[in-house]
Every structure is written in C-alpha cells, then in structure tokens.
C-alpha cells in the first residue's frame, strides 16, 4: 500500500510543475489579425478561462468526495467567480482595443489563479489531516 501511495506522489510531482506556469504548446483561440499585445492578452485570457474551469471541476469533485466541507467549497468557488468576472472585464478591454489594459488585467488574474490552484490542493491536504 505504501508503495502505491509513494508511486502516486511521485507521479504527481511532474504535474505540480506543469500546473505552475500554465502554457499550452501553442496559443488557443488567438486571432492572427490582432496586434502582438492583443494576441498575448487573448492567450492569457483563454488560458485563465481554462484554469478557472479546471479549478471549478476540482472543487466539485472534492466536495462530492467529502474532502471539502460545503463552506470551504463555496469559498473557493466564490473566488473562481470573482476571477471569472475580472477575466470578463479584461476581455471587454481587449474587445475595445485597449490591449495594454487587457493584458495587465489578465496577467494579474492568471497569477491569482495559480495561487488558487495551490490553495485548492492545500485545502485538500489540510482536510485530509483532520
């Protein structure tokens, strides 16, 4: 049993590294007609939406499995909603042609999403200890 658990932990280590800087191999859903700043902003916005969808799915799984209490899951999901709203505002700025603002807003939220992913995992760890 211990060997299995250790194997799972070892298997998870590269995943932890991958979850850090979330960059796919190629940009997703970025129009080639946008200027470079717009392309970068759209890429970060799309990545952020992927990260938020993944976080929401993990929160759902953790509350279903009893790893989170209802209140903890709701707190994390409220954070996801808050960041989603911020990403929507970055998308609006991009649509209006304010690429610099869109990029800075999206980059700020991306950093918060990385922290959220770690908090979601840390909460699971804390709950496991109780």
């Amino acid at each position, binding site marked *: 049993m211990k060997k299995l658990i250790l194997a799972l932990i070892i298997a998870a280590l590269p995943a932890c590294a991958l979850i850090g800087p979330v960059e796919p191999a190629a940009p997703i859903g970025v129009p080639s007609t946008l200027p470079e700043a717009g392309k970068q902003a759209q890429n970060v916005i799309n990545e952020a939406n992927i990260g938020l*969808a993944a976080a929401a799915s993990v929160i759902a799984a953790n509350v279903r499995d009893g790893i989170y209490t209802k209140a903890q899951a709701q707190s994390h999901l409220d954070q996801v909603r808050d960041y989603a709203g911020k990403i929507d505002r970055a*998308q609006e700025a991009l649509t209006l042609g304010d690429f610099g603002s869109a990029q800075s807003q999206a980059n700020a939220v991306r950093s918060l999403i990385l922290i959220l992913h770690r908090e979601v995992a840390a909460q699971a760890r804390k709950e496991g200890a109780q």
Partner: protein
Amino acid sequence: MNGGIYLVVDAALSLLAAKFERDAIIARVREKEAAGATPEEITADLKAMRDEAIAKAQDAINRAR
C-alpha cells in the same frame, strides 16, 4: 503516520485532477480548432465551458450535506 501519507495524497491528487481537467479542456478545444472553429468561436467556447464548470460546481455544493 498513515494519516500523514493520505493527506499528502489528497493534495497531490487535487493537483493531478486539475491538470487532467485542463488537459481535457485543451483537447476538446484542439478538436474544435481542427474542425474549423474560428478563434472567436474558441474564445466564446472557453468562456462557456468555464461558466458551465462553475454552475456544475455550485450544483455539487448545493447537493452536499
């Protein structure tokens, strides 16, 4: 001791689950790209997937005891 191991496993599995979810979304998007979806459609799809995942999570929370 075993409790310590399990709590580490819970955290590691949460991170793994997030990675799998992310990879699954990217795979779906790549399929749509290959099928000819425009970047604007992909962007709209990603927002819709995000909102759907949030709605499902809220549903799971509401059902939890």
